């Protein structure tokens, strides 16, 4: 069989899966394809997708980041505290992104300079950041934030019929796609994951590339946190628990190899859409939540099995 066609088909696998999913769910329930539900779906997907974009960079360097949910919670709590303290909410969102960069940067520094395995390093910071969130909030949600329409709109608003979180998602996607495909930094990200030795010989500053990937993921987690905080009009100390798994699942579903060096961010967007469509579609179809988890697990498993065949 023609090698090129096979390759193309494999690349299109996730997209075919997504389209198939759409057709099945639309066939079984006609309210699924209604415009208002598609908007609703995009709003729901955006949080996981934004985190997963960062996770793509990390996984491409053959790392992993388990601390995204904790970074989300801690940066949201700090942001909410600023807002309650009277800070302009838009400034607070930027401050929160800064906190995300710092927390993610710490991950990167520990991994790059400390030579700690990413799984262990981020497992540790996941626990530390979550603990810090609980200390900071005293275990209570921070509510009574603000009635500022811009902050409100960041999670709940629409511009020209599109939910603002979805716009944030598409804009981050375009920027990150450009960084990954069209810049030296992007090529270096692939190279580091492909082979550190070769990258070193080629003169790539490996540590910088790694720290960038983790700091970026931290920032994106914080932005996702700001969206959640705006949507729920409160910062929750338990926010983001388990989100690392959804983000990793989206990356893997999109065909990025956990071994690093191979994959693309377009796939991650599709992967996040598949997970979001499953969540939304199975709810609309009134499938018991117990079965929903089994379906999600099987889909991820099959995607990884499919990925293995590529190697």
């Amino acid at each position: 069989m023609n090698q090129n066609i096979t390759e193309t088909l494999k690349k299109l696998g996730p997209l075919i899966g997504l389209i198939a999913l759409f057709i099945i769910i639309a066939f079984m329930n006609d309210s699924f394809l209604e415009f208002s539900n598609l908007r609703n779906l995009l709003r729901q997907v955006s949080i996981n997708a934004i985190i997963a974009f960062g996770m793509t960079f990390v996984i491409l360097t053959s790392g992993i980041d388990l601390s995204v949910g904790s970074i989300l919670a801690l940066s949201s709590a700090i942001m909410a505290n600023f807002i309650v303290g009277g800070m302009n909410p838009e400034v607070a969102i930027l401050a929160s992104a800064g906190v995300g960069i710092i927390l993610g940067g710490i991950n990167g520094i520990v991994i790059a300079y400390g030579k700690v395995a990413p799984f262990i390093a981020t497992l540790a910071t996941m626990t530390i950041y979550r603990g810090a969130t609980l200390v900071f909030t005293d275990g209570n949600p921070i509510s009574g934030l603000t009635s500022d329409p811009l902050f409100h709109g960041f999670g709940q608003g629409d511009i020209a019929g599109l939910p603002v979180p979805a716009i944030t998602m598409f804009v981050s996607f375009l920027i990150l796609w450009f960084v990954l495909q069209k810049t030296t930094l992007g090529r270096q990200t692939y190279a580091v994951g492909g082979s550190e030795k070769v990258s070193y010989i080629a003169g790539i500053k490996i540590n910088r590339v790694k720290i960038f990937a983790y700091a970026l993921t931290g920032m994106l987690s914080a932005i996702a946190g700001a969206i959640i905080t705006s949507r729920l009009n409160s910062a929750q100390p338990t926010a983001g628990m388990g989100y690392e798994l959804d983000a990793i699942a989206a990356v893997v579903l999109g065909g990025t190899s956990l071994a690093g060096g191979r994959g693309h961010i377009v796939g991650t967007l599709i992967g996040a859409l598949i997970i979001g469509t499953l969540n939304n579609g199975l709810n609309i179809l009134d499938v018991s939540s117990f079965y929903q988890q089994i379906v999600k697990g099987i889909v991820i498993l099959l995607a990884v099995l499919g990925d293995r065949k590529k190697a």
Partner: protein
Amino acid sequence: MKKLLTVIAAVILVIGLVAGCGSSNNGGGDKKQGTIGFSVSTLNNPFFVSLKDGVEKQAKELGLKVKIVDAQNDPAKQANDIADLLESGVSVLIVNPVDSAAIATSVEAANAKNIPVITVDRSTDKGKVVAHIASDNVKGGEMAAQLIVDKLGNGTKVAEIEGIPGASATRERGQGFHNVADKSLDVVAKQSADFDRTKGLNVSTNILQANPDVKAIFAHNDEMALGAIQAAKSAGKQVFIVGFDGTADAEKAVQDGTLAATIAQQPELMGKIAVDTASKVIKGETVESKIPVELKVVTK
């Protein structure tokens, strides 16, 4: 490529099958009157499973269709779930919030669509609800303290094991307990164990170590009370332990004589009342805005 196609086909098949099973009685008539949407905080806890059972049974009894979504204790997932329910056209929404502050925006979203909301067990900070159905936690706390006074007498040295700090159940049960205890008991220790059995064990062990003369423990839920039983056992002490909730494990411990009592909530009754109320709302009847659900003291 053949293998890839097989994988895709398998995914489609699985989803089709599961979705088919789950929605066999769906019939596509979602937008008709009389569908109840029920968003439950978690099904990873027997209490809320009983609540869900109560909802399902009563809905079947009354011939109403009910769509159930499980937030898995994540307030953001609950916001998504409720958006999905509103999208699929339910006529009443029963919500058991993960968090009272976070649920407010979802309740307001339902208000904007003119879909009546009933909250169960936990309330919402903002937004309009037609009814709130919950156990009277303050009264339950008072019942627990009164039971200790009745059995062990005035001025008994007692320790209080609190739930998650700031949670409404913690506040209300603690408040009720102190309404009585501050007058007639001697509360020598007060520590949080986050409603968790293992933490309840550790915290009680520490308390019994520091205050060997404690005669009674009131835990804000049964899980922590069951932890306290283990602590008392390893310390070799006879302690009068009172829990809260009335879970199956706790009722068994009461029968075995290891747990003195539990203030039992009735989640299944709560679910039943929620559906009864929803049914009245659908018919356009007026309902009480606050519906307390009875608690009962379970002793041997």
